[in-house]
């Protein structure tokens, strides 16, 4: 429990064996002010970034942004509809590939493997992947898929995003399954249910909210990833081909290319795209938190 001790009163009132010395009081003051300022600074930076996005991005938000495709160099107007749809497709592809793998691997760690050496190793490897530089995952998928398949493709982009999403889902799934009390599983096993049934019907059900949260957080994580897409899905100015072969337009890479371009309308579109993607990701993160919170309260 939190005990908030009022140190001002502590400093003012004489302790039984004497007064709090001035230097001690000063050090305490400095610490408190510094910590509060640092926290305000963190909140201030977030506010600053969001306000800047609104300020720069909202002017560029027009219906054309959502209906027209990205303009070529030097042409006027245009939108980022193809990039928005492409991003949705790539993110969906990534999460559809990652969810079963992540959930099952997390289930292995929490239910089957538990204390085994293999599970310990995989848990460690998963933690490394969770924080591994995403650009290296782009390089890996480039060698794995782009080179053999002879060109950039949406499939490669989806796989790269999936590789980033899997560790997030593994981690949250395992953490949530570990919170499920063992007595629930024992009750299921006592009814004669096989292990798979106990896991699917009891453990998964009990941990459902947490697992969904993990998937949402993974979606939020990959939706804004740029580096791994640079070498896999790349980008183009058109709608993606239905086979997902060739470059697939997506928001992050479009923002990257347009923000640094010398054309006025490109920069405006980059800001509009940045606003759209950041707001979507923050909304996803907040929703994930709310789901978990609601579940905890219940």
């Amino acid at each position, binding site marked *: 429990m939190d005990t908030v001790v009022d140190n001002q009163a502590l400093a003012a009132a004489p302790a039984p064996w004497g007064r709090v010395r001035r230097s001690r009081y000063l050090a305490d003051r400095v610490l408190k002010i510094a910590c509060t300022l640092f926290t305000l600074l*963190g909140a201030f930076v977030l506010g600053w970034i969001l306000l*800047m996005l609104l300020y720069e991005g909202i002017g560029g938000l027009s219906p054309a942004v959502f209906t027209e495709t990205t303009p070529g160099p030097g042409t006027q107007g245009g939108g980022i509809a193809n990039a928005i749809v492409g991003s949705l497709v790539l993110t969906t592809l990534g999460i559809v590939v990652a969810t079963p793998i992540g959930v099952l691997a997390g289930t292995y760690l929490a239910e089957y493997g538990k204390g085994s050496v293999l599970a310990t190793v995989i848990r460690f490897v998963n933690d490394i992947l969770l924080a*591994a*530089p995403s650009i290296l995952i782009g390089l890996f998928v480039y060698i794995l898929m782009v080179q053999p398949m002879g060109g950039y493709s949406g499939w490669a982009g989806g796989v790269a995003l999936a590789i980033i999403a899997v560790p997030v889902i593994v981690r949250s799934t395992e953490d949530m399954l570990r919170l499920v009390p063992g007595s629930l599983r024992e009750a299921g096993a006592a009814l004669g249910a096989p292990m798979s049934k106990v896991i699917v019907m009891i453990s998964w059900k009990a941990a459902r909210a947490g697992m969904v949260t993990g998937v949402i957080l993974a979606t939020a994580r990959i939706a804004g990833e740029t580096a791994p897409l640079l070498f896999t899905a790349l980008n183009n100015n058109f709608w993606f081909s239905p086979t997902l072969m060739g470059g697939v337009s997506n928001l992050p890479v479009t923002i990257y290319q347009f923000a640094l371009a010398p054309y006025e309308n490109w920069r405006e579109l980059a800001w509009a795209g940045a606003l759209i993607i950041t707001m979507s990701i923050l909304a996803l993160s907040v929703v994930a938190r709310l789901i978990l919170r609601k579940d905890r309260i219940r």
Partner: protein
Amino acid sequence: MQSVRRRTSPVFDQGFRWASYGSALIVLAVLAGIIGTMIYGGWPAFQEFGFGFITSSIWNVGGEQFGAWVAITGTLTSALIALVIGVPISIGIAIFLTQLCPPWLRRPVSTVIELLAAVPSIIYGMWGLFVFAPLFANYVQIPLTTLVEGMPIIGTILYARVPSGVGMLTAGIILAIMIIPFIASITRDMLDQIPSILRESAYGIGCTTWEVVRHVLLPQAGVSIIGAVMLGLGRALGETMAVTFVIGNANRLSLSLFDPSSTIASRIANEFNEASGLHMSALLALGCILFVVTFIVLALARLLIARVKTP
């Protein structure tokens, strides 16, 4: 109970077990695959330049001469700057959240700090380049440069030849902002785990908050805070998009913190799509070095913070 039995065949039970086992092995395979492709792809460059690949600072695409030294020092320097700025702030935030913050304010404040981690890195890059860099150039670089010009050592470190706002220090500052939420939230969790009886007894004998933090909390959580810092370092080393926007992408060694430079990740991001042959191999070799360094850092981090929740 009957229905439980009837609908689950032993085949499903076994299949489920093997599917989860297989999925867990995929995680292993991915890491092995990353190591494998980096070594395989970078091999020609390592073979061509040998140890000189690491120590040489020549990066000449046309002349097929590649040395990683500038990118390596750029990566390490920017990450170091990020730690110097970010660590005190992160620990301060964690102390605020666990010791000073009124209970009703805890959740909103931690949510705000954690949302900083959710903002995509490309947004930090845009913010850094278009908003932060001009302000930094006008209000920090130009005054400082006129102030320190001609001074020994400081005059070199803080002298901006072209005060454009982009450069090593800007990259370090942006990285600091990006790693603060990670270090702060892990440190907060670690501080929360310290039994409250320790704190309360320290307060009980008349300690001030500063003394409780200094003599009780930090020694207790010390090792895991170092782990959290290493985790932040791992992220700072590999961060790509934000750094690519603000570091200036120049291949030159400079003692000035205001001069443009490049990191391993920013160089790969900038050059990979136009690379082929030995150039591409050199970039993959860079990736290999980055992977080895971050792997060591992250592994140490994991050993130090046995197991805490990351957002």
